[in-house]
């Protein structure tokens, strides 16, 4: 009895204490174990760096922004599970980047959650899921894509390589047989007229299951292309490039993920002269951001870290326009502010297209050279910027399949 009375008194005191301001909570639902750890870890690093920057500038709503990592182990079912946990923890904004399949799961989970919990919405900032359907059939108000898509990368590559005279007139497309690879193949076909090339062959193959690419190289050789377009990542890119190099085939690769750590070192001299289109490269900027990042984390931003940090910087700009006065956080207002934001990233301005929440962003095209300014993987090779294609030139029309329902509609 005595104890009960004490408890009652204690809770009365706790309730009477002045209400603390509500902190903004960010959840990183990322592949932190399993096969995609290497990529997931980098996204998580960059988000944490970005949150640190926000907190250094005073946080948000009178409190430091809180960030929690959730490990989805590389699978969509685990991601759905971790999303429920994040919601239970009161997370306002979730981040994910390593997989389109997981992004597809999360964006649906977020959409359903927001229908059922009006007033307690959650927002999803997609840092790397490039599948077209995420801003097509699956597009929704609370999903924002802060990365490129296949047509943006391909158009930028065609544009820059043609100007450099490295494109040629015969193009081969080899891609992984799932949404991303199929998007790449379609983009390569679609850009044939503007690029003035003929697609002499195309093949889709299983994702990261193939150990031996020699048979594919034999196919490519038979078609005799000048340039090979591939959206392959991880082993599929490395093995393909190595097999091509071993066969002594003289083609230029136009890639999307050549900057994945370990690729340049493993490919060796075979990599020289190949192209990549991505969101950001240190060599394309004035170097200030790269130095800041290095000072904070101990290394220059690599692979996806740069553009992921910019997503947080853009979010910070949006947050700066809002003031909830220490009260409850309204995620819908944050989303609306993010729609209106324009962030001047080190490689050019980035803004959100309201119709489908794809960011209109610059695409950097680079080429592997010897003795670059920022060497990759402790080698003497690295990327040299060929061209920075501004956002308005890289963007493609909104897909017809996107029917976005805005809040209040």
């Amino acid at each position, binding site marked *: 009895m005595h104890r009960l009375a004490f408890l009652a008194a204690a809770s009365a005191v706790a309730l009477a204490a002045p209400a603390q301001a509500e902190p903004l909570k960010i959840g990183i639902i990322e592949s932190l174990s399993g096969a995609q750890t290497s990529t997931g870890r980098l996204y998580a690093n960059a988000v944490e760096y970005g949150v640190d920057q926000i907190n250094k500038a005073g946080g948000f709503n009178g409190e430091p922004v809180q960030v929690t990592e959730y490990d989805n182990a590389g699978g969509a079912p685990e991601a759905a599970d971790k999303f429920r946990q994040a919601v239970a923890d009161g997370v306002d904004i979730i981040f994910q980047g390593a997989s389109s399949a997981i992004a597809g799961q999360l964006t649906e989970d977020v959409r359903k959650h927001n229908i059922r919990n009006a007033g307690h919405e959650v927002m999803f900032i997609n840092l790397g899921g490039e599948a077209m359907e995420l801003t097509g059939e699956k597009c929704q108000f609370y999903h924002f894509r802060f990365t490129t898509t296949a047509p943006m990368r391909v158009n930028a590559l065609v544009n820059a390589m043609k100007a450099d005279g490295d494109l040629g007139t015969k193009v081969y497309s080899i891609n992984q047989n799932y949404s991303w690879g199929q998007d790449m193949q379609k983009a390569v076909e679609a850009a044939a007229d503007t690029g003035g090339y003929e697609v002499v062959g195309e093949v889709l193959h299983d994702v990261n299951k193939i150990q031996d690419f020699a048979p594919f190289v034999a196919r490519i*050789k038979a078609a005799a292309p000048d340039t090979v377009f591939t959206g392959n990542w991880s082993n599929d890119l490395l093995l393909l490039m190595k097999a091509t190099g071993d066969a002594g085939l003289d083609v230029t690769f136009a890639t999307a993920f050549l900057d994945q750590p370990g690729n340049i070192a493993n490919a060796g001299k075979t990599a020289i002269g190949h192209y990549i289109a991505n969101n950001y490269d240190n060599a394309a900027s004035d170097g200030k951001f790269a130095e800041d990042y290095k000072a904070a984390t101990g290394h220059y931003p690599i692979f996806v870290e740069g553009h992921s940090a910019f997503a947080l910087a853009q979010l910070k700009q949006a947050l700066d326009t809002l003031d909830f006065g220490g009260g409850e956080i309204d995620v819908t207002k944050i989303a609306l502010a993010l729609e209106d934001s324009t962030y001047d990233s080190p490689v050019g301005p980035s803004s959100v297209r309201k119709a489908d929440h794809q960011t209109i962003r610059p695409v950097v095209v680079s080429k592997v050279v010897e003795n670059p300014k920022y060497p990759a993987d402790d080698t003497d090779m690295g990327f040299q910027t060929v061209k920075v294609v501004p956002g308005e030139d890289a963007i493609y029309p909104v897909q017809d399949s996107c029917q976005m329902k805005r809040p209040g509609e």
Partner: protein
Amino acid sequence: MEFAIVSTLNGVTYGLLLFMVSAGLTLIFGMMGVLNFAHASFYMLGAYVAYAVSSAFGFLAGLVVAPILVGIVGMLVERFLLPRVHAHGHAHELLLTFGLALIIEELIKLFFGDFPVNYQMPGDLRFSAFTIFGSDYPFYRLFIGGMAVVMFALLWLLLTRTRTGIVVRAAERLPAMAEALGHNIPVVFMAVFGTGAALAGLAGAVAGAFYPTNPNMGIELGVIVFVVVVVGGLGSLKGSLLASLLIGLFSSFAVGLDWSLAGLFGLVGLGDWARAIGGLMTLKLSSVSATIPFALMLLVLLVRPAGLMGERN
């Protein structure tokens, strides 16, 4: 003709690599009845050990140290871990090695990082053996194939033509009898397990320099190696060789063939109808080439449940 020759060459060398990795697995299962799920992890461990050693003492040193070290790890596993669950049967041994595989993978990530490491073959081995139809054929592929052939010959001779082989086979058939005749059965089993692990380590050291050495290499090859062993017949060395070559050749030829079900229907004039249906009908063989080994496994299991050369057909 060019297609057939190039595909055969690629298929055979890839098949021999598969054999090199699966030989140890077959040996361990055939002689001890342990289905070692961690086998592909030993393969990965071999590649990483060779990488670490070769960066200090050269490529050859890596090739020698990797199998020895991985073999010792294998022996320790057999000596201290497996006996604890042996009494509970195969399922427990399988689960134990499965857990071991996860632990090895995470340990590798802890020590060597998440990214592929820069394990390269020495420049002296990086040349083309010959030129065929205008493309170079890397010598290292032949080197891998040659190693596999030597490995098969040595193992086969050891098991069938030497006294040691007789003791090992006796230990497998009638362990109590062999023990009664004065042979130290636990030591024999430990040696067999160690040899199997060492073979995986050697395969890793050789193949890791050709394919990327990364923390996923175990998972990537692990599944296919099990397919090889099942298709060949659990425990049959010759079966493994046959299955590896079959899988290598099938995968290699499938890549070059844009066959689809619609094409098949086209032969009887129903091509347009099949293409209109789409979906499975227009799926090209080349886009599912990595799935072919699994289809082959299904077929073999249906027709010969014990595998191509398994004993209990």
